[in-house]
């Protein structure tokens, strides 16, 4: 029977929304656009360090590199005598296809990095070694047996490999219309040879993918394309807008390559979508983005995996399928979420030791995922690789490509030196992983070992990371020692240490020293990060004018940097410009949803603006995203809930005069009921009063009360005397009203804190003590009034706020008249209001 629950995962290494957005707007990526329209989309958070073999292994395992073991582009061969491009042997955790194999599900895997040597799973594996064909076209006929599984497919697949020499001008000209202007002798690096190689390898991968879709049965299929990444490393520097240091001639030749690469990738996507049925869930994702703005690096520094410096923090995530939402942006997706999501798709439990989560937000119908402790401890056949028998296998093509791309240095003539430095670099990458996970102690331990390796070629870099980790741990004393040691190192690579120096000075309280360091750095190179740091420095010194200027200048250069927007929002919050604060906080949230600080600032700004409902939501989000840091958000949310509770009182009236209606003035004691009674009496409604309670200091103009009201719970037969009159009945007694009459209740409201304070003064108690139980019982009481009024057909009610009566009498009087349905003498009503009586008010 045909499987109807298939999942196709397509990897576009380095794809970035910044390039995709404008192309979609022009209709040039119709297939990705179709997926967005019919599915979900969002940012994909990458991890540090953003090195593709580590990241794609995290995609495959749902685990961070410290757990899966792939630590970089290279690995040391088990005999410790040589290096090779990283292989599947480095992966120590089970990949999704291992788990699916164990569950008798079939996977097809094409080009995954790293996947060589092929694991013997149910399904087919075309490894990352498959498209590497070398210089000699005759070599295309030979291929390491371990590059393909099963061997029964090897002959067909081998014939689908394209050699760079087969790339013709028809394939090149759409990308490089002025290709004939390229001087192949002088322009080898940017020229057509690397272009043709990348193109041919991509076609080989795509051919293998379409072949497997046509000729095999599968449940899960993963296809990995490095086309956009490799094209971006080669040609992004020529992408518009033109960088000042790029020559006009070269810009003119190569400026269309990147857009062409994305369009070709989209055409390949179109074909894959055409080949799968509508029941198949399809995911397109990248592992990181790629810098395309002014920050593009033209000359890579000589550091480990330097080209990755061009990788941006956010990649892309797009998914479409039968149970997925349509045209909806989702937030907070990370690389490590993919494997758990795939397991959940196949109704398999997620390992609790996986670092990612199921992306539940993308589903229409959500069912709770199942969990097991770990897949690693499960006995059985997972088709994992056995220990190597044949230790050294050459992979010159891949090695050369990595060197050409600048990811690795050409190995030293003395191979033992290269092995030594590579081992240290892999360890360094592990320290970076721990830093990324904010496990600074583990990172520090490794980095301390690394700085002990005095012959290490990258020792300066180890020091820089150790300094940053020490500052994160607030280990100021040692940071100063490491900085001194670092300055003594003779290194070709110059690291910017002004941030570190400034951070140390700030930690010591020397703000003017830190300011001097940052300003000096800014004079040398105008850099948004330096502007941001300077702004933060001004902010902590409460110099909001300068802070604002710094953040605004940083945003002029990089408007979509979330932390710059958040920083400016904070400044506006401090200066009382709440609308602006909310706007910038919202912008930063739009850019990155998982930003608890921004949600917290937004909440504060909205609260100040009086938008309590949304403020509550924003506090709630901040508290959920970072419960430890934002415990205050939980408290703020509770406060707002209280405010909202007292604000959810709703009027119930048809605003018509009723024959023989009884007007009732009600509310909690000290909420302005006497004032309203007085106003209505002056306005022309006869009050039902007996004047038995005399005026006093608390109510100098009298209480306007009727003694039988106090015993209404025993006897309400007097209520007919109130017809066409107004009577005061305090809130808790309303429930004893006889339902045979029609009531018009004017319910006075007032800030509960003020009411309680006023009551305590009247009773001779300390006004500054807030009795929480009483406070809560009043809130409960107001809720009960709301419920009661709905059940009583003869009852109409309006809520009139005491403060509004004092501050905006005409509006309150108009509302009152409309409610009673009778013209009253407004002037006389207003004459009753004496603002000096608004004592015990709480200033907001």
């Amino acid at each position, binding site marked *: 029977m045909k499987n109807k629950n298939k999942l196709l995962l397509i990897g576009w290494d380095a794809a970035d929304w910044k390039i995709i957005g404008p192309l979609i707007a022009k209709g040039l990526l119709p297939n990705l656009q179709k997926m967005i329209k019919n599915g979900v989309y969002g940012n994909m958070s990458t991890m540090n360090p953003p090195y593709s073999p580590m990241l794609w292994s995290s995609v495959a395992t749902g685990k961070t590199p410290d757990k899966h073991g792939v630590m970089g582009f290279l690995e040391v061969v088990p005999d410790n005598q040589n290096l090779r491009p990283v292989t599947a042997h480095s992966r120590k955790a089970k990949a999704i296809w291992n788990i699916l194999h164990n569950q008798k599900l079939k996977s097809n895997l094409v080009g995954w990095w790293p996947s060589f040597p092929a694991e013997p799973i149910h399904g087919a594996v075309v490894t990352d070694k498959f498209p590497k064909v070398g210089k000699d076209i005759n070599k295309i006929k030979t291929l390491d047996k371990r590059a393909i599984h099963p061997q029964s497919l090897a002959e067909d697949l081998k014939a689908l490999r394209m050699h760079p020499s087969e790339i013709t001008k*028809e*394939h090149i000209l759409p990308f490089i219309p002025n290709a004939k202007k390229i001087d192949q002798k002088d322009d080898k690096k940017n020229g057509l040879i690397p272009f043709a190689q990348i193109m041919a390898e991509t076609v080989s991968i*795509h*051919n293998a993918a379409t072949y497997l879709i046509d000729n095999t049965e599968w449940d899960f299929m993963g296809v990995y394309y490095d086309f956009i990444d490799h094209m971006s490393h080669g040609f992004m520097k020529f992408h518009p807008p033109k960088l000042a240091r790029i020559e006009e001639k070269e810009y003119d030749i190569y400026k269309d390559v990147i857009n062409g690469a994305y369009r070709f990738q989209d055409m390949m996507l179109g074909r894959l979508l055409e080949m799968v049925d509508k029941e198949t869930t399809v995911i397109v994702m990248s592992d990181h983005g790629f810098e395309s703005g002014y920050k593009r690096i033209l000359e890579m520094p000589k550091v480990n995996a330097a080209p990755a410096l061009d990788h941006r923090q956010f990649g892309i995530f797009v998914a479409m399928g039968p149970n997925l939402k349509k045209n909806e942006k989702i937030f907070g997706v990370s690389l490590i979420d993919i494997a758990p999501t795939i397991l959940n798709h196949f109704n398999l439990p997620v390992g609790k030791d996986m670092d990612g989560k199921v992306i539940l937000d993308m589903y229409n119908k959500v069912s709770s995922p199942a969990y097991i402790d770990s897949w690693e401890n499960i006995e059985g056949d997972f088709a994992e690789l056995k220990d190597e028998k044949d230790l050294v296998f050459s992979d010159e093509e891949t090695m050369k490509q990595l060197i050409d791309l600048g990811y690795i240095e050409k190995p030293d003539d003395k191979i033992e030196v290269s092995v030594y430095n590579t081992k240290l670099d892999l360890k360094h990458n592990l320290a970076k992983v721990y830093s990324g996970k904010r496990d600074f102690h583990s990172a520090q331990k490794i980095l301390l070992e690394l700085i002990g390796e005095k012959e290490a070629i990258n020792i300066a870099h180890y020091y820089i990371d150790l300094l940053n980790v020490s500052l994160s741990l607030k280990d100021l004393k040692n940071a100063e020692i490491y900085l001194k040691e670092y300055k003594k190192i003779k290194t070709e690579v110059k690291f910017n240490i002004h941030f570190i120096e400034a951070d140390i000075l700030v930690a010591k309280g020397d703000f003017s020293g830190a300011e001097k360091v940052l300003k000096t750095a800014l004079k040398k190179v105008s850099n948004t990060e330096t502007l941001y740091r300077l702004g933060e420095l001004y902010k902590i010194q409460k110099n909001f004018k300068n802070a604002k200027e710094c953040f605004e200048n940083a945003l002029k250069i990089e408007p979509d940097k979330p932390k710059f927007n958040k920083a400016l929002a904070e400044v506006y919050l401090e200066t009382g410009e709440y609308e602006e604060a909310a706007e910038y906080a919202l912008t930063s949230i739009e850019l990155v949803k998982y930003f608890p600080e921004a949600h917290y600032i937004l909440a504060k700004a909205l609260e100040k603006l009086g938008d309590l409902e949304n403020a509550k939501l924003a506090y709630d989000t901040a508290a959920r995203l970072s419960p430890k840091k934002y415990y205050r958000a939980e408290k703020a949310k509770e406060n707002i809930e209280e405010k909202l509770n007292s604000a959810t009182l709703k009027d119930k009236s048809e605003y018509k005069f009723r024959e023989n209606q009884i007007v009732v003035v009600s509310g909690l004691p000290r909420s302005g009921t006497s004032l309203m009674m007085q106003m209505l009496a002056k306005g022309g409604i006869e009050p039902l009063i007996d004047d038995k309670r005399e005026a006093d200091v608390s109510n100098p103009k009298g209480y306007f009360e009727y003694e039988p009201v106090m015993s209404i719970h025993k006897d309400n037969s007097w209520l007919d005397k109130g017809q066409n009159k107004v009577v005061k009945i305090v809130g808790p007694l309303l429930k004893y009203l006889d339902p045979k009459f029609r009531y018009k209740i004017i319910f006075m409201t007032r800030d509960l804190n003020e009411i309680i304070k006023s009551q305590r003064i009247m009773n001779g108690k300390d006004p500054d003590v807030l009795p929480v139980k009483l406070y809560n019982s009043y809130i409960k009481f107001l809720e009960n009034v709301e419920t009661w009024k709905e059940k009583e057909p003869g009852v109409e009610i309006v809520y009139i706020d005491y403060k509004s009566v004092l501050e905006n009498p005409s509006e309150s009087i108009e509302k009152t008249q409309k409610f009673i349905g009778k013209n009253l003498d407004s002037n006389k009503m207003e004459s009753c209001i004496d603002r000096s009586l608004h004592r015990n008010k709480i200033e907001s």
Partner: protein
Amino acid sequence: MIKKNQKLSLDPLKPNLDSSLAHLAYGHLAFSAWRKLKKSKLNEE
């Protein structure tokens, strides 16, 4: 995009995304056909 069973014909004089690259994007069937076509053209020459 090339449809299934569509006759494959490349015009090497008019390179554009919609023809030459569409063949490659179509995958293994178009690739094999293209290689065969190229080989036969070379033989003709």
